[in-house]
């Protein structure tokens, strides 16, 4: 069974009397362990699609099956739980909690998951070490560079043990060196047989496209190409 299956997903925004279709009859299947990129010009519907997959937005029509559950039928609190346990998010603007240290940011989701303190501390330290921040764990986001903050975000997304990591333009704000380093980290982690984490990116970045093993191209809210 596919990890993610989208059937006839449409999303229509109403702007006054104007109807704007952001997604039109999108069908997509993603298997566990994939490292896939959603590409396309601005306004093609990449972020909207990621938001729908992440349960942050609801489709106007269609079905989103993730790990065997139809996300469109989940209640608000079930969606919260689903995001907490099944999904990891990496955002373009890092989005760390500014009053928490790097270690606390990574631990936060695991705290919400109810993991024991010892376990979450070990996992947080492990993933921060993996992303090369072993010596920056106690720093708050304001004391870290953009690249370091995005690494913390990657560690946070992965440490919670999600099945699927959704990354919206994760390298857009990073310089070339940091972007490459981050992609290396994510790619390496996606290859970890124990974790078997699936990555789905929305990106314009050719470096991400180079790394991706599957490229799904969106245009005007429709999938126009899906290449492995």
């Amino acid at each position: 069974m596919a990890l993610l299956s989208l059937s006839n997903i449409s999303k229509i925004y109403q702007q006054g009397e104007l109807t704007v279709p952001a997604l039109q009859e999108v069908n997509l299947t993603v298997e566990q362990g994939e490292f896939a990129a959603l590409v396309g010009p601005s306004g093609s519907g990449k972020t909207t699609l990621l938001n729908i997959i992440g349960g942050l937005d609801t489709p106007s029509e269609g079905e989103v099956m993730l790990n065997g559950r139809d996300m469109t039928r989940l209640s608000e609190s079930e969606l919260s739980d689903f995001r907490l346990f099944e999904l990891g998010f990496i955002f373009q603007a890092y989005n760390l909690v500014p009053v928490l240290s790097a270690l606390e940011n990574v631990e936060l989701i695991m705290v919400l998951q109810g993991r024991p303190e010892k376990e979450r501390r070990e996992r947080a330290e492990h993933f921060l070490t993996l992303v090369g921040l072993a010596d920056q764990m106690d720093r708050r986001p304001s004391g870290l560079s953009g690249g370091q903050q995005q690494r913390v975000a990657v560690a946070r997304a992965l440490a919670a043990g999600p099945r699927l990591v959704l990354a919206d333009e994760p390298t857009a704000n990073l310089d070339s060196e940091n972007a490459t380093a981050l992609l290396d980290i994510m790619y390496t982690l996606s290859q970890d047989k124990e974790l078997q984490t699936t990555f789905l990116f929305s990106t314009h970045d050719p470096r991400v496209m180079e790394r991706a093993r599957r490229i799904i191209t969106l245009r005007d809210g429709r999938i126009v190409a899906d290449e492995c």
Partner: protein
Amino acid sequence: MTSVSSGSMKRQHAAGLPLALLLRLAWRNLWRHRKRTLITLTSIAIGFAMAVISIGIGDGSHNSMIRNAITLGEGHLAIQPKGYLEAPSNSLMIADGKGLTDQLQHPLKALAQQGIQVSAIPRISLQLLASTANNSVGVGLESVSGQAEDPRSEQLRKGLIVGDWLSEEQENGIVLGQALANKLKVRLGSKVVLMAGTQGGDTTAQLGRVRGIFQTGMDDLDSYLILAPLELGRLFLKAELTATGAQIETKTKTEIEAETAQPLTRIALFVLPAGAADQAQLLLNKAMNSSLNSRQLALLDWQTLMPDLVQFVALDDAGNYVFLLLILIMVLFGIINTVLMSVLERTREFGLLRALGLARIQLMLLVCAEAFLLSVLALLFGWLLGGGLHLVLSANGLDLSGMMGDSTAIMGTYMDPVIRPELSLNRIVQLSGGIFLVTLLSGLYPAIKASRVAPVDALKT
């Protein structure tokens, strides 16, 4: 490395956010804008300190008035004839005062064993006509026992400006207020004829001689009151008994005379500690209810004896509560402003937290926790400031004599011009609880607003 089986996991906490993390986050969020938080805290603390001082001064002056009214009036409790309060009359009396005084001893001992000291002071109150060669004036005569320590007598004695205080050795020696002395145009040693009409239509007259003159600053006392030994007052009551036959008693005139009754108008009861007056009233009522009823007597508390004072205090308290309410409203909006600003600034962050899996209720709790911590700090600062000022004013007093001038009377009782603020435990709980509750409530709206953040919209901001 611990492997993860995410699908089987459930939130372990009902609210999902452990208290320690909740408070840590709230605390750090509170200090993100140090200046803003400090300004808010300062304004709440100043408002709270004002409330503490204002309520303390109000309570201090009320309590001082009540204490003085009890001292100069009829004590915490009084036993007097039924109907006397509504229509005071020389003919309404406790005919066998001695018998009642003896009967009181047992319950008073029982109270003493419970740590409640009650002094029973015999009193005679009469409305008389005082005449001299120069003038005649209606007066109130209060007969004071020379044996028992009467707090009223002690208090008035402080105001003695000329002559000596009452003495049992001089039964017709009287002490009167200066204004009254002026009206009657008397001085030390002057004779004053005191006259009272009996119910039978006769007139009783006794001669008093001025031993001393007092001045309290209270017009009601200085221009109306004559103090005399108990025996002088008793002569009038005995004359009333002889004339009318003690119709208020179940016993006959002959029986009373046989007992050599010592008639009184009332027995004033002073309770120590004053807070135990209710308890004392309960026990005395229980012990003496049937006896009091059979004698047509009533045991009344000071609130019943001085309803005007109670009403004044209640009205003044209401004014203080309005002031407190205004301060609470000020605090409410101060905190709403701070917490709401803080929430609106963090819309994106709340969107992120929602996206990561934080439930609406957890976001609400987080914002409420910030309001909670703000309220704890506000209370702490408020008490430091308000409590400190309160202690200083309590120790030194607030001298209002400049504002009060010569008049020291309010609602017919003595008002000490130096007010010492007082705060009871109840008030401390009320003030703290009020501010605490308002602060918490003020966090609700921002908390609800935070919980309604839609992650997808918030993350776009």
